[in-house]
């Protein structure tokens, strides 16, 4: 990554950096909202904007962005996924840091975009895709690895349990970063989730191609969440959360799904 140089060439440095003295000072972040957040859960990317700006970053949202294409790729529609791969590489090319509030979409970008580009045999596309996908980070990776913070100054006086989504752990490999971020939130009680490493059963189009198995898995996940006595179930992926939350809502469980970013953006006097 040639961070500072590229940034300087793209964007004239402000005379006074409004983030001065904060961890994100001098860093411009391109927010990849992801299509599901953009369309269904706008509160999550809004929380990312507020969190990153609070930490001193400059946030941009390139309006040409659409989707990582995972739903096409994982269903076997490789040709149909390709326009999203080209679009992603083009839209995010100018940025050093591309940050998304989704381990799954980040995993798809880093893991699948190069494979899809390779299929075209277009070397220049492969190179462009590799360059941009390598700079794509999950929010938790950006906070912990790039900004070097685990205490983001958040306040969230609630009992929560965290479900580590499969693709965030096994594809994007965010590890324990989300836990470390949650542990530092003031007022929070984080309760361990039993059988946390088992899939919730969402699985993208699996949730509608095999709805019975998907719901059987979701029901078990929901029961484990309820066992914790938490008010909120937290993940770094709203897609899985839509499934777990959908089961919890149907059961009138009184447990709310919430994205990690929304907790991290919460402050004294501004929390759910």
């Amino acid at each position: 990554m040639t961070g500072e140089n590229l940034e300087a060439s793209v964007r004239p440095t402000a005379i006074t950096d409004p983030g001065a003295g904060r961890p994100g000072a001098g860093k411009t972040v391109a927010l990849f909202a992801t299509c599901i957040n953009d369309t269904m859960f706008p509160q999550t990317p809004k929380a990312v904007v507020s969190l990153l700006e609070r930490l001193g970053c400059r946030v941009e949202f390139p309006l040409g962005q659409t989707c990582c294409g995972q739903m096409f790729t994982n269903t076997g529609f490789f040709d149909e996924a390709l326009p999203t791969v080209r679009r992603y590489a083009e839209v995010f090319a100018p940025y050093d840091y591309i940050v998304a509030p989704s381990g799954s979409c980040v995993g798809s970008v880093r893991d699948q975009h190069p494979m899809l580009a390779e299929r075209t045999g277009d070397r220049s596309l492969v190179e462009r895709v590799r360059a941009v996908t390598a700079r794509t980070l999950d929010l938790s990776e950006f906070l912990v690895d790039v900004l070097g913070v685990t205490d983001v100054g958040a306040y969230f006086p609630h009992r929560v349990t965290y479900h580590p989504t499969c693709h965030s752990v096994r594809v994007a490999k965010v590890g324990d970063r989300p836990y470390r971020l949650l542990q530092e939130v003031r007022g929070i009680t984080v309760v361990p989730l039993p059988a946390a490493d088992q899939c919730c059963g969402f699985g993208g189009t699996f949730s509608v191609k095999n709805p019975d198995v998907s719901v059987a898995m979701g029901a078990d996940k929901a029961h484990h969440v309820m066992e914790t006595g938490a008010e909120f179930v937290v993940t770094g992926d709203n897609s899985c959360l839509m499934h777990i939350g959908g089961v919890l809502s149907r059961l009138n469980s009184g447990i709310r799904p919430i994205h990690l970013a929304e907790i991290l953006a919460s402050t004294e006097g501004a929390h759910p």
Partner: protein
Amino acid sequence: MTRVPKQPTVAVARKRRTPAPPEETFLGMPAFRHGAKNALANTQQRRNLRHATGTIRAKRAAVVGEVADWEGLRRAGEDVKNDVLAHLDSYLVQFEEQFTKAGGTVHWASDADEANRIVTDLVRATGADEVVKVKSMATQEIDLNEALEDAGIAAWETDLAELIVQLGHDRPSHILVPAIHRNRSEVREIFLEEMGRYGTAAPGDISDSPPELAGAARIHLREKFLRAKVAISGANFAVAETGTLVVVESEGNGRMCLTLPETLISVVGIEKILPSVADLEIFLQLLPRSSTGERMNPYTSMWTGGGSGDGPHDVHVVLIDNGRTNALGRLHGRSALRCIRCSACLNICPVYERVGGHAYGSVYPGPIGAVLTPQLRGITSDIDASLPYASSLCGACFEVCPVRIDIPELLVQLRHEVVEKKSHARVPSANQAIFAGASWMMADARRLTAAQKLASAASRILPKSGHLGPLPWPMSKWSNARDLPNPPAESFRDWWKREHEGGRP
């Protein structure tokens, strides 16, 4: 397994010698989701599976965790198997030479029918009308027991779980623990009902305690071991350097079969080759720890050819292809042939844990079955085209695979093949139309924005409860059991435009 319906022959009049398996065959099974729906309703099976897979997962995690460099061992296993697959032609010939030199006979079978014919002829030549069997996936794959039954030869399974399955007129539902879907009270009932019809009966007052059940099986089987002139086995490994076959087992039934009879016939997939005896160092660590969760399995039997002295004098191996060269010729698919049948992927799989093995319509169920079976049989039937989709792609299988088969990646590649195959259909499916439309929309942010405006418009007329309850088809696939949040009044990008770009949304 591709059993064809039985031709009405004179065999019809003859009484079966072994318990009949279920009527329905794997051929023509409906797509996975239908089998899965039935399996999910089997509450007893779900409880049995949850208990059994949970126990074995914990055992595996403990014995894998104590190996200093498990990742290094996995990579070593992967490397050896990749070398085998890259040079299978020469290793197989080397194995044949060595096995023959040691006094054994090598047979080659391109498919299940040919393998069954070879084995049946070999058994007939001995004059025997029954065989004892070591647990073997290869013989399950070719449905050897039924081929022998058709020839008037009784094949007796001697592995405890295979015996339970056979006596229960059932099919295996797991690679390693074929009766995993049964609990001990079910086993007791099967033994009481069936054992006496095929040999020594179970004691009438038998309880469901594991020692009593195992005791009844031991007595029932001993009679067959002592009488048998012919044994049939598979093999876990075939060592090219020496022509040695290796069977790894837990109960000692294998050792009985491999040593007592005069004739030994082993049916072995061509991918079971290991280059040298030294390679066993890797695999005899990887296999028991991954499969039964043991540091070392109780019995490891190795034999090299036949000959005089103790043990079988007449020793054969039938090397079967049966679709393996199809997989071998495929860039991604080939890695599935590294599989050593440990079943760690089944035990960790959240889908397998809930539906069990029968729903997969294949002798190889679970994640490995979902990638192996469509390659061995081809993506022609409904069940085989649905298997690559029988996974949430959670990736737990890849994490535990001792030879690092990237099953999620293989599943995605096979899904692509299914899509490609269906794209040649004259009329595009609803699925194709939906994905083509979505692709068009996602190619341009303006189109996505337009779709979001529709969602926002819908949200204004929807009830203010915050979520949507049951909806009509096709949304019912989601909403039958799950609520859906109402779409927001404003998409993120509209908010952004309003707040940051000063533009109208």
